[in-house]
């Protein structure tokens, strides 16, 4: 295993050099290196990952095939939004909503534009949420999936607007709405206007629900701050993935405020279930089945 780790380190180092060279305009040597790495990857042994919960090892492919859930202990890894859509929707049924936004930077906050540009390149997502319309066992629904890997899934203007537009689409077309939440809270870099996204999204959900719309909120790890205290907290049906951290204040802030350690399992899905704030904890393996069941129960 140590040997394997060394090999991986070596590969990452080469990739880092390669990226640097590409930034500096690239050269023939760099493309040779890229081809070299691709060739090596074919013959390289499978990459192993260790489960942070049970410390068992298994291949990355095994993990992917198992919806990013540890096959040994059921630990839920973060799941890339596109992969979740694939796992949830009927094949080929999902149509992604695309919008054009200008570069949003109301505070003209130093380094913010660069950080977003960098993340857009790395994640190939333009914001921390992906929205669209798809079918789940034949039943059409509007789906939004948040991505905690993009600036911690924080809510700024673009994210708030994208979610709001999805809600309005569901309202206009009389469709159920499913939101997979994952967020560290408000997008600090956008100041007060990120706070106002809480009002905007909640207002949209309220109008949608008053017109009879069904909204399923599905908490994934982590869902905190301004997102948990706005649209995430308003589901007609609220589901949660096992052991997801869900709460208003982050655990560290609470510990600092009260000056004591937090109890084991605090703010986790199971804790919320115990205190009456989720309908059910639904593991990813049952995600499609349970959502389909709820949609069936709400068919008009």
């Amino acid at each position, binding site marked *: 295993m140590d040997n394997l780790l060394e090999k991986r380190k070596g590969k990452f180092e080469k990739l880092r050099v390669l990226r640097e060279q590409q930034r500096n305009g690239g050269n023939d040597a760099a493309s040779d290196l890229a081809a070299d790495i691709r060739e090596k990857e074919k013959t390289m042994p499978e990459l192993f990952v260790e489960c942070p919960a049970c410390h068992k090892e298994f291949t990355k492919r095994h993990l992917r095939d198992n919806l990013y859930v540890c096959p040994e202990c059921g630990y839920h890894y973060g799941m890339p939004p596109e992969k979740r859509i694939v796992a949830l929707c009927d094949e080929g049924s999902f149509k992604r909503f695309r919008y054009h936004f*200008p570069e949003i930077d109301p505070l003209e906050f130093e380094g913010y534009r660069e950080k977003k540009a960098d993340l857009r390149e790395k994640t190939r997502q333009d914001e921390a949420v992906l929205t669209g319309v798809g079918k789940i066992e034949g039943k059409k629904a509007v789906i939004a999936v948040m991505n905690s890997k993009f600036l911690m899934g924080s809510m700024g203007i673009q994210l708030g*607007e994208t979610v709001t537009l999805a809600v309005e689409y569901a309202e206009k077309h009389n469709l159920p709405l499913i939101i997979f939440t994952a967020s560290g809270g408000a997008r*600090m870099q956008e100041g*007060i206007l990120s706070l106002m*996204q*809480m009002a905007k999204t909640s207002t949209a959900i309220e109008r949608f629900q008053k017109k009879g719309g069904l909204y399923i909120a599905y908490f994934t790890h982590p869902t905190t701050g301004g997102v948990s205290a706005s649209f995430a907290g308003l589901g007609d049906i609220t589901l949660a993935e096992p052991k997801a951290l869900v709460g208003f204040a982050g655990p560290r802030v609470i510990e600092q405020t009260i000056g004591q350690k937090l109890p084991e399992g605090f703010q986790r899905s199971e804790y919320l279930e115990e205190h009456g704030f989720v309908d059910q904890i639904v593991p990813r393996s049952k995600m499609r089945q349970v959502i389909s069941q709820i949609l069936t129960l709400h068919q008009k």
Partner: protein
Amino acid sequence: MEEIDSRIDEILAQGKKPGPMDKVLLARHPKRPKINQYIDYLFTNFFEQKGDFLGKEDGSIFGGIALFHGMPVTVLGHRKGNDLQENIACNFGMPGPEGYRKALRMMTQAEKFGRPIITFIDTPGAYPGIEAEMYGQSQAIARNLAAMSSMQVPIIAIVTGEGSSGGALAIGVANKVFMLEHAVYSILSPEGFSSILWNDASRKEEASEVMKLTADDLLKFGVIDEIIPEPIGGAHRAPTIVFERIDQLLCRELKTLCAKSGSELARSRYQKFRTMDEQFRVME
């Protein structure tokens, strides 16, 4: 005399204006007018309503039913308390979920009886504690945001001191939002902002500049509708001037808002928050 007062006097003596951090300190000034003073001065026949009727009472939200120039209204806001004992009793104006549910109970009743709602915002934020989380802080705030958005009565919010985080907004989804000249309204405190983004809480002064949290900034952003001027040196130096101005403002606004139908009020409130950020997100 408070340290901040001498600092402000110095600034004024130099012919300058207080900066963002001065305003943060003024907004937190222990002598700054508090909710009970606003209610005493502006309303008559005040009847306090306590409790969330779900098993808890939260002193950090204070309010009830009162008359405003003879018209029944529901009035509520954050309560910080006037001395240390009171501060502790009302948790320094940091509500738990029971506080937001108490506020929602009052507002829902206001809607039932057709009373306009007036809220006073002055909080360091919603309380980050074990019980607050256990009883659903997030859910309570979210519910208030949603419920306020569709209410069929006029809602007016006034940011009088610190308007910090979702804990402030949870009673701030109003048809009209006003702000005292030296009040601040922000996503979190400058201390929190600098420690999260720069990992250094001591850069709070710099954070206060960057965050755009003053009434002037928020007016430009369209987050507030109007600034209520304060007497020289801050509201605490001549509170009655501020009370008088708010009185006139409420008379004017209630006259306009009460002429509208319930659905019109809900629709225009929706529009307000739907379009607030338009200047930043629409392609040119």
